[in-house]
Structures are given as C-alpha cells and as structure tokens.
C-alpha cells in the first residue's frame, strides 16, 4: 500500500509550498488558505527541502512568482512516484557504465527515485537555511546528476500542463505569455508582428472539457 504523507501548508510553514501570495501576484481571489497535499513519494521533510531548493533555482521575487508558488515540489513528487521515477522509460539492461562520455547520455544504474533519495541526504535541513546559505549549498552540488535532474524537473514543474501538479493556475505560462493548447491561431499567426499577443491561457482539460489522464497516473 502506498505510504501516505501529507504536505500541510499554512502561513506558518516556511511560507508554504502551495501558499500563493495571491494578493501580490493577483492570480486568484483566495488568500492564505491551508491545503493538505497527499504526497506520493517524498516524506514531508523531503518535500519541504525540494520546495526550498527548486525555489532557489527558479525564485520568486517582488515582481513575479517562482517554483514555490507554482507547486513544483508537488509536480516532482508525482513524477518520481510515477513511471518516470521508476525508470519505466529507460533501457535498463546491464552492463551499466557510470562514467560514460556525455554524448551517450546517462548510462548509470540509479533510477530517478534513487538519485533523488541520495541527493536529498546531502540537503538535510536545507529548508531551514537562509537564502544565501541555500545558494552556497546548491553551488556545491551544481555538477551532480541530482542537481541537473532537479533543475530540469523544476523547469518542467513551472511550465507543464497544470494536470501534472505544477504550473498552478497556469502561473508559469502567464509569466512568459504562453496560452497553452490554443485550438486556433488562424486569425492571429500572421498579424501582431512586433507586438506581444497574449491570449488568456487555458489548460488542456479546460480546452478539451475532458478527463485527460497524465502519464504519472496511468501506470
């Protein structure tokens, strides 16, 4: 049976993985609500570390939200629990070659789940450090496979369709002016030259009015 841990967010818990400073970013009407997010892979402590680390990679500031507000930790938690985290999408027959040249891609044995678990061991207490110490800590692990996965997964969690748990309220898409799966740009594609055209974003489930199932929920 799946271990049940929850990430309970409130104003008291380090600013909150899923507490959007909504008044500041004007993304939604509700303020400072407390949400219990069931975790699929991380313990609560691990989720808090990932939330803190991803928000140093993609920080929020006075003008725009970042990884914390977009729910990147929840996205990564679901990906790790799903087929990708278990290496379902990788050829995993032996022999592995841990020190292969970069142009062959990752050739090691460890799965994303194992890489995260190992990497998290080196970040104990990370979420309780100040921003400067956090950045120093991340600089130390910058060359690791764990960090490059975390960086890539942070970008994914910022800009994926919201059904995957990240990009909450299409916050990442709004940042860059991406409208999501817009059914037709026929009238617009050869106009608006030189000026920003920013249609209101819609997610895949909104566009299709259907129950699209993300890969992490399939297997």
């Amino acid at each position, binding site marked *: 049976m799946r271990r049940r841990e929850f990430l309970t967010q409130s104003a008291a818990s380090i600013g909150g993985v899923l507490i959007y400073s909504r008044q500041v970013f004007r993304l939604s009407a509700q303020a400072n609500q407390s949400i219990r997010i069931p975790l699929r892979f991380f313990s609560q402590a691990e989720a808090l570390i990932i939330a803190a680390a991803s928000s140093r990679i993609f*920080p929020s500031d006075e003008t725009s939200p970042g990884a914390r507000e977009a729910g990147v930790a929840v996205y990564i938690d679901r990906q790790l629990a799903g087929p990708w985290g278990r290496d379902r999408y990788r050829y995993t027959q032996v022999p592995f070659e841990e020190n292969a040249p970069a*142009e062959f891609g990752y050739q090691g044995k460890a799965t994303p789940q194992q890489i995260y678990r190992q990497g998290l061991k080196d970040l104990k207490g990370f979420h309780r450090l100040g921003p400067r110490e956090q950045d120093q800590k991340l600089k130390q692990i910058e060359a690791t496979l764990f960090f490059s996965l975390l960086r890539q997964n942070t970008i994914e969690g910022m800009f994926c369709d919201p059904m995957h748990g990240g990009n909450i309220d299409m916050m990442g898409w709004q940042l860059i002016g991406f409208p999501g799966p817009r059914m037709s740009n026929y009238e617009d594609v050869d106009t608006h030259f030189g000026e920003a055209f920013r249609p209101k974003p819609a997610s895949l489930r909104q566009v299709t009015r259907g129950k699209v199932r993300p890969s992490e929920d399939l297997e």
Partner: protein
Amino acid sequence: MKTLPSVDVVIIGGGWTGLLMAKELGSRTALSVVVLERGGPRKTNDYGDDMDELDYTIRFRMMQDVSQETVTLRHDSSRRALPLRQHGSFLPGSGVGGAGEHWSGVCPRYLPDCFELLTHSIEKYGSKRLPEDHAIQDWGVTYEELEPHYTRVDLLLGISGKAGNIRGKQIEGGNIFEGWRSAEYPTPPTKIPYFSSMFAEAAKSLGYHPYPVPAATTSRAYTNPDGVSRSGCTYCGYCETFGCMIGAKSQPTNTLLPVIEKRKNVSIRTGAWVRRIVHDASENKGKASGVIYFDANGQEVFQPAGLVFLSSWTLNNTHLLLLSGIGEAYDPTTGKGALGRNLTHQVNFSAATAFLERPLNRFMGSGASGIMLSDLDGDLFDHSKLPFLRGGTLSARSARSLPIGEWGVVPESVKATWGPQWKKAALHYYDRTGRIGFSGEHLAYRDNYMDLDPVYKDHFGDPLLRLTLDWRENERKMADYVITKAIELAREMGAKDVTPFSGLQSYDATRYQSSHVQGGAIMGSSPERSVVNPYLQHWQLSNLFVLGASSFPQNAAANPTPTILALTYRTADAIVDRYLKNPAPLA
C-alpha cells in the same frame, strides 16, 4: 508456435510506407493483405486531447518503447558500444502510422543530382575531391524517373507550397533551385509567422532566394485523389512529437487509413512484433516464406505469405534483416557484404540562435510553416575554394516552441544557469528568441555502418542493432561554413545577440537532430554493393521488398518523407504492373 493460414501479402510495420503499400495493393488488386504493427491501434481522429508537452515531447508518449528495444552506438570500431538508454538524437515512432504521426511535415524534394551523387561529383571535381574513406553511391534511379511519383505524393498529402520550377520555367517566390516539377503544389503556402517573415526579408536583402517551406500541415481544407478530406491548419503549434488534433497535418492515419479501412482484403494486426522473416534456401530457393511474430498476447505465430514487405522504421529494417540472416552482413575491413553499410544521419542543428528586440509570439505556427533557402544546398554554390563538398538548407520555422523545451535559452553573456539573474534574463528572452536551422547532407563513409551488438539484448533476448557512426571533416567544415552565413542572417534580422552552433564534435546521441536516419539496406545497381535493387526488391529473395529510408545510399540534406513515399509508389507500380504477372527479379 501457431501457424496461421497463408495470405498473399504480409507487410511488416504500419507507418507511411507500409500503409501506402497496403492502400495501393488493397485498392488495385484483390490480394489478401495483412499489416503487422508492433505498436498499438490508432483511429483517424485520435488526437483531440494530446496537446501536453510533458507527456508527448519530454516523455515521448508516441515513440518506440526504448525500455524494450534500443540501439547501441560507438564512434568507431575500436571502441565498445553503449546503448542509447533514452531517446535522443532521433525519434522512432510506434503504433499505427509510425513516425508519420508525430512528424513536422516538412516536405521538400531531393535535388536531382543527389540520385547520381557519385557520378556527378566525379564528373565535376574528379575522384580526388571526394573524402578518401567515402562510400557514396548512385541510387539506381533518377529524378526524372521519380518525378511523376513525387507529384503523386504532393497530391496524396495535399502539400502546401510555391513551385519554383514548373517544367523548367523558373518562378520567383518558389525554390528556383528545385528540380523541375510537373505541376504547382496542390495547396498554397501556409501562413508565415513573424520570425519566419523577418528571416525572408533578411535573406532577400542578402541576395538569397527564400521560399515557403513545403508543408504537409496543409494550408486549407483539401480533398486528395482518393477522396480523403482534411481540414486546414490552425497554427496551434503542436506538431512535432504530437498527432494533429484536427488532422490538418497529413499522417498515415488520416491520409491512408480511411482508404484502407474500406478494403475488405486488407487487415491490420496491432501488437504484432515481427521477430524473423522466414526463408528456407533449400526448399524454396530465393523466396521468403513468411514471418514469425509475437502477437499482443505473447503467443508466437508463423504467418506464411507469398509476398513480404519490410517497412518498419529505417533502422529496424536493417535489424530484422540481420536477425533473420538474410543477405551478407557488411564487413568494413574487407568491404564485403552489403547489409548494414552506408549508415547516414542528417547534418541538423540550430546554426544561429537570434536574440531579438521585439516579441515574436512564437507559440503560433506549425511544424512546417516557415521560410527556407536552398542557395547553399547541394552543388548550387561554388565549392572550388571551399574545404568541403555539398551543403544544405537554412530555414526559420516555428517548430518546437513549447515552454519546457524552450525556457532558459539566453545569450552567452548571461553566465547563470539558475537563480534570479538567470530567471530575469530567461523571462526577457523567452519570446524574443528564434532559431535559424540547418539541414545538411551527410555523406556515406566506409566505417559508418550497422551490425549486431555483441553485448546488449532486446527484451526478447535478441542482440540490439549496433551503430558505428561519427562525423567526418566534410560535415564539420560544412557546419563551420554555414554557421557564418546563419550569423549574417541573424544580424540582418536585427539580432543584437547571436549564439552560433558550437560546431560538430563527435556524434552526440543526446542532442535531437532529426529522425532522418538512412542506409543499412541500400538500393543500387549491383548486388555486391546494395541490398535491394532500384525497385526495393531484395537481390537474393525476390518476393521480399524493403521500403523506407533504409534504402537510401546516403542522406541528401532535405527531409526524406516525400522521397520515401515516391519510391514506395514506384515499387507498388512495378509490383502491380510487372511482378504479379511474372514473380521474378525486376532488375
């Protein structure tokens, strides 16, 4: 093993070539035709809800399951090969329609001289200009012979574009360098997004001859000669790695399947993974007798057949021939054997990344809507003082502009790769970044080839296909040359910052280049140096035909699908008109 009743025709692989052959034989003959597709089923309009970059582009939902079968790679034969454990430099498709479902739909023809590359190059430069270790060959078919079939492909797919040469008459605005065409494109060019139109202006002012990319993302509603209708493109931007949500992009499932489904003599079996082509030299000399496959339930099945078409993805064709022991495997040390030789990819890269002043609205477009130029293609420019032969096209398209893949591209002056400075720069440049792409010719070399890997196995326990592949000086110097041209174009477009491509080092299996891999079962006029004859008929087994880009003696710069389909049409004609009356070698 279960043995099924014999059928007239078995087709291995339900992608572009397999389904085109099924449509042709199913419509023009009464033969019983079975298509064996190892992936899953698809319907004509299957893509209403696939517009998800994460599952489709990042996690490769439509691609071959690499956990079950991949290939191994080494850069030269002195090294140990490693498996490509994740998809990277090319993307084989899976399921009905194959890679033809997730393609971009860029549809140029090959330049006429590509088909006689060896003859042409020696005539023009003498044999000394060719790289010492080259293995280039003529195809055994000419552009003149293929032209009518290219035109059938244009009509089948409803390709959008502007002709530049109709029966020798040059037409401004089209590709004036293209081989002669017998007719204008069936549909007008697609709409051109902002970045591409900037590229067109810059190219003109530098003296080039830009033209709209020939596109299978059809510009308006179209009904093809089979009576199959598709709607026009709406420029949603979800083309490459996706199936088209409205069917504007021509795909096997919306172009061929509607005809096939009406034919009672054609059936498609999905989940049918072919492991061997069976041939017994002693009993039935010079013929294949059928195929062995594992069905969707894991049951091993023998399907006898009178005629066998091998039409899986290009590398898988060579793999299955090697596993089946059909033909002599190529040995690069002796030059003997033809099976596996002449492995080529395509010299593809973003030649210049341009950082512009104004927002580009780059979410709008299609995989093939854009502008390209052929002034630097083939032998269309003077190579007498250049350190390389041949060339390729430069283009500005709106393919691949989704946010996970495109976030974080910033000028080289920005050193940070994470954190506040990186975020700030990436936000500024996200919609101000455009790429000038290059698609160049990859020559064939004696030591770029395929054989069976001695170490790594697929999930049936069979050896994986091993690629021995690397770039040579010709490609590297060609790349360096076109990069300088792309930088000039980017500057002319007003780019303040330009990041040039870093140049070709050793072959990088992690960088997506294109899914255009060729060779292994090449066509030609001699059985010593080719696997199939110019009708794609196996030299040793006359009832076996091997379709697809595995037959190309070398890459020819442009994207291959129209040429692949034109050759398939030509083979279908030869079978219907000649082979069925006299089942013997066609050449």
